[in-house]
């Protein structure tokens, strides 16, 4: 483990949303993300997963603590840490090709080069033939493929994904998980993947990071040493799943007890 290079590290991160009442979303969180790994993050609903990703993306400023990318503190959003959002954030006025070209245009590539490069990624996510369609003509799964291609085309150091598959039906979702692993295998991008779904986390991740109830801290980080492609019904898979589910249940119970207390007259 120590041989692997750390690409992203978070030190003493704290995030408070000021207001009445103020919400402490993240509290003294430390983490290291290794180059080329697939890191999954699970945690109880509302614990601060999205907030964490948004801070890593630079869309939100931490209250204290720092985020280092390859040793340098991040300054705002940038194409070295592209985010794929839960809701579809494709630009509806651009075609599939136009969406994937977006980041390439900003990098100053000529139109020809941008098209050639974008087509590579459209092919990678299996959407050749659909490049001239508009987002509203695509299914949910196809939209997220486009979002993935658009993000990969920027060639980011880290890919941030916030529940990108949660709007899909179960079959499409399983299929997309398999596709995502294939694409990751080919590109070897560092991926930080937030999900509600423990099975998804165990299927995808090299490691699964379990967060506590709000304020989010790291409860535990679990190595998933299962050969890919993983069998969702193998006993080691199921055992790991149960273990993580138990951890989550503990956290959710904490929230319940807390709110029961506050309900007491």
């Amino acid at each position, binding site marked *: 483990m120590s041989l692997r290079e750390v690409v992203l590290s978070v030190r003493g991160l704290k995030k408070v949303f000021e207001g009445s009442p103020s919400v402490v979303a993240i509290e003294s969180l430390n983490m290291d993300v290794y180059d080329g790994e697939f890191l999954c993050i699970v945690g109880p609903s509302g614990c601060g997963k999205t907030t964490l990703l948004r801070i890593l993306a630079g869309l939100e400023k931490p209250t204290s603590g720092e985020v280092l990318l390859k040793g340098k503190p991040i300054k705002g959003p940038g194409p070295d840490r592209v*985010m794929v959002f839960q809701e579809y954030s494709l630009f509806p*006025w651009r075609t599939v090709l136009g969406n994937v070209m977006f980041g390439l245009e900003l990098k100053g590539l000529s139109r020809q080069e941008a098209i050639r490069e974008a087509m590579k990624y459209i092919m990678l996510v299996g959407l050749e033939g659909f490049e001239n369609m508009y987002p*509203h003509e695509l299914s949910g799964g196809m939209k997220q493929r486009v979002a993935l291609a658009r993000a990969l085309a920027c060639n980011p150091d880290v890919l941030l994904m916030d529940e990108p598959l949660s709007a899909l039906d179960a079959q499409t979702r399983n299929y997309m998980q398999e596709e995502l692993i294939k694409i990751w295998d080919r590109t070897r991008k560092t991926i930080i993947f937030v999900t509600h779904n423990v099975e998804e986390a165990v299927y995808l991740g090299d490691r699964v990071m379990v967060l506590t109830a709000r304020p989010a801290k790291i409860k535990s980080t679990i190595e998933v040493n299962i050969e890919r492609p993983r069998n969702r019904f193998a006993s080691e898979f199921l055992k790991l799943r149960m273990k993580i589910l138990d951890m989550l249940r503990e956290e959710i119970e904490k929230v319940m007890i807390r709110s029961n207390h506050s309900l007491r007259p």
Partner: protein
Amino acid sequence: MKFKNLLLYLTSLIAFLLVWELYCQLIVRNPMFLPPSSRVFATFIELMIFGRPPSFFLPYDMLYSLFHYSIGFSLALIVGFSMGLITGWIKLANELSYPIIELIRPIPPIAWIPITILMLKLTDAAAGFIIFIGAVFPMLLNTRHGVASVEVRYLEAAMTLGATSSLTLIRKIVIPAALPSIMTGIRVSSGVAWMCVVAAELFGVAPYGLGYKIDLARFYLATDIIIAYMIAIGILGLMLDRVYRAIEEKALAWRVGLVIA
């Protein structure tokens, strides 16, 4: 489908002309009061091809009115778009301009005519200004609304993909995302501009133009000319609207459900 529509349009148009014709021939029976449709039609053709002394010649007046329209409308587009963009994007600019805009907006363009004529005299510029006053607000308001309601997720997505400067965000996200509203602004603004053309010309800013001639015809008690000019105003207004509609449809092909049969 298309053919059936055309048939319906023609039927309703012919029915209207027929009722008009019969009403005049059988009940009014005074062409100076209200000429029948056949008479107006003949006059329209005559005015389109030969004109009638002293100065009634439709093609020339149409062009002249379009000239007034172009001055006022293009100015309204430029000012309305820029101000809409600035006030929609920068909150402070919106708050500062809001009371001024809201105070000036309810003043009808016609109320601006006296002061405009005093300041700019009876010139084409005066007509342009009155048209501008009428047309600038729909453009400004629609653009501002479109820009202010650009969804944050598009902006954030663009930012993580490398769009860091405001200028890039405006060019690549804000304007395309606001385009539906901007297009509506253009269309509404054009319609108001065309109405203001007639109002401005009525006051004699120039010795030509549809608005001026329609009033001149009154002095000659030439009701058929008045109505022929009214029809010309209607037809040109309709054509302008169709042009912007066509542009809108082309520019917004990406929108869901815009394809209306």
